[in-house]
């Protein structure tokens, strides 16, 4: 828990930038809409942006108060190197890539049944969830059931 405290430091900086952007864009919205501020579409985003900025600045100073700037930066460096070297992170990244390929490539180019079948087999193999025969049978049964229940049973369009 303690060794992840530097994440507050990073979170506060990233979200402060987001808050600053929201404030600027909401001012633009107010001017662009031609409405008075209290009725303009930028009012709520402006309030939320200011609120977020106040909270993230609070979080920033809290993390500085807890550890100091140099210790936070040092922990951040160590955290990044541990993060990059971590096996869990590598596995998660590969898993995300497989899921990303399924969402952004396979589903766009192939029929849902084929895309899902490929995804289920590849992802299950990556997770080492069983023997290849078991994985193929389970994947075919799953996709077949989904197709029968949703497409044929309920008549709903699949992606």
């Amino acid at each position, binding site marked *: 828990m303690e060794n992840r405290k530097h994440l507050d430091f990073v*979170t506060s900086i990233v979200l402060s930038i987001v808050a600053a952007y929201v404030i600027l864009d909401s001012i633009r919205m107010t001017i*662009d809409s031609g409405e008075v501020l209290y009725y303009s579409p930028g*009012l*709520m985003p402006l309030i*939320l942006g200011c609120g977020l900025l106040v909270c993230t600045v609070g979080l920033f100073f809290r993390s500085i108060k807890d550890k100091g700037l140099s210790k936070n930066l040092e922990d951040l460096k160590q955290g990044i190197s541990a993060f990059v070297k971590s096996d869990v992170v590598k596995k998660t990244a590969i898993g995300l890539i497989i*899921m990303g390929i399924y969402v952004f490539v396979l589903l*766009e180019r192939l029929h849902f049944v084929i895309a*899902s079948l490929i995804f289920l087999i590849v992802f*299950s193999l990556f997770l080492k969830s069983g023997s290849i025969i078991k994985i193929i049978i389970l994947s075919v049964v799953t996709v077949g059931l*989904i197709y029968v229940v949703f497409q044929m049973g309920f008549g709903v369009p699949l992606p």
Partner: protein
Amino acid sequence: MALQYLLQALQSAFSPINLLTLIISVTFGLIVGMLPGLTSTMAVALLTGLTFSLSKETAIISLMGVYVGSISGGCQSAILLNIPGTPASAATAMDGYPLNKQGKAGLAIFLATAASALGTIISVICVLSLTPFLSGIGLKFQSYEYFLLALFGVIICGNLASNGDALKGWIAGLVGLLIAMVGLDTIGAYPRFSFGMLNLKAGLQLIPLMIALFGFPEILKVFRKSQEQISGMTPLNIKEGIAILKKNIVNIIRSALIGVFVGIVPGVGEDVGGWLSYWATKSTSKKPEGFGKGEPAGVIAAETGNNSCIGGAIIPVLSLAVPGSTSAAVLLAAFYLHGYRPGPLLMTDSPNFLYEISIYLLLASIVMFIVALVVARFTVKILSLKKETLIPIIFVFCIIGSFLVRGNYFDIKLMFVFGFIGFLLMYVKLPAAPLLLGMVLGTMGDSNLRRALKLSGGSIVPFFTRPISLFFVIVILFLILSQFGIFKKLFKKKEKNEAVN
């Protein structure tokens, strides 16, 4: 009239297709609830998209079944694994697992299941009695009160659902409110944060976002190593269980009422209900030292408390369109999806809906009790299911659930992107509950604030002169100031002064 609505609801619930749906959905909910890492919110969110093509009644029955089943199912893994299947059952593990270690796993599961059913049934009584009352108050609300209600919901949820770090809770709530701002604004149709993209101008759909926030992070958790040792099952000991339940009637009623009131508080989930009930029972017990070592009263209190939150969380959904928990937030989105309009006008526009929900909840709890005891024989086998086998299938269902809401491929991409963002937020310990509540309440807050200010010509004075509005202002200020320790400092000063005098 009420009796007629109740009979109509019963007739609808007992149609063969709806009864079968209820049994299947409760069983599905129980299994999801049992499996550590798969939450009730995720189950309800996933099913919401999948119920899109079902009739209104069947869809709502299935969602109620999954909600009740998943909250109740968590106790079985808490008892057998010492790992709560859902956060709601965390308090159950305190005494459930020690009971298992004493060779009383079956008894503990019977007590937990019966307490869950009783908790839900008591909460149904509260739904029937409190919803019309709250709706009546809601009718007095104008734009000023609705804006403050949205703000109150996000702040109190930030305070209570952030493990003692309210600042992070508020940040999550504000981010959620900002996400709700994406798209055309509801008053002047001005595009906000849409970057010229047509799909963003249409606004972000709640269901894919909910699947992303509650399903996706659980999928990514599969990459972490976990060591779970499952203990064996023992007989249920129903006779002994009934005798213990009889001795704990006061405990059950107290825990149920605590759960209902925790459920009513916006965004505060079943886990808090379980813990508070457990704490109250331990504090009032003659043998508090027995708690944590296998005290049946602990199991009963925790399970009654978390399950009665279900009804409690539904009360503000029906009466004010404000969700009492994250699962209830998903339910609210599901109600909208199926054409229901919860809120203060519910009792005048469609009063039958309240009775339908109550009957469905009641039947779901009874079905859950029966199915859970039958399923208990197979719990060890279910818990032996490898997460690695289930996760790829769950991801495919996340895809289908996101797509079905409006048949737009963009929603799948949205689910993936926000799923990753949700995972990052979880990694930096920003709580998901206030984020979700912000997303649900954002539009209500925005449109009502601007309407209120338009009515008052830009003046904020009515926020302080209208009684209900002033009440909310005071409560919100209290909630914020309490986090800065101001009241503690004031009390200390007073004590010092008294000591000097």
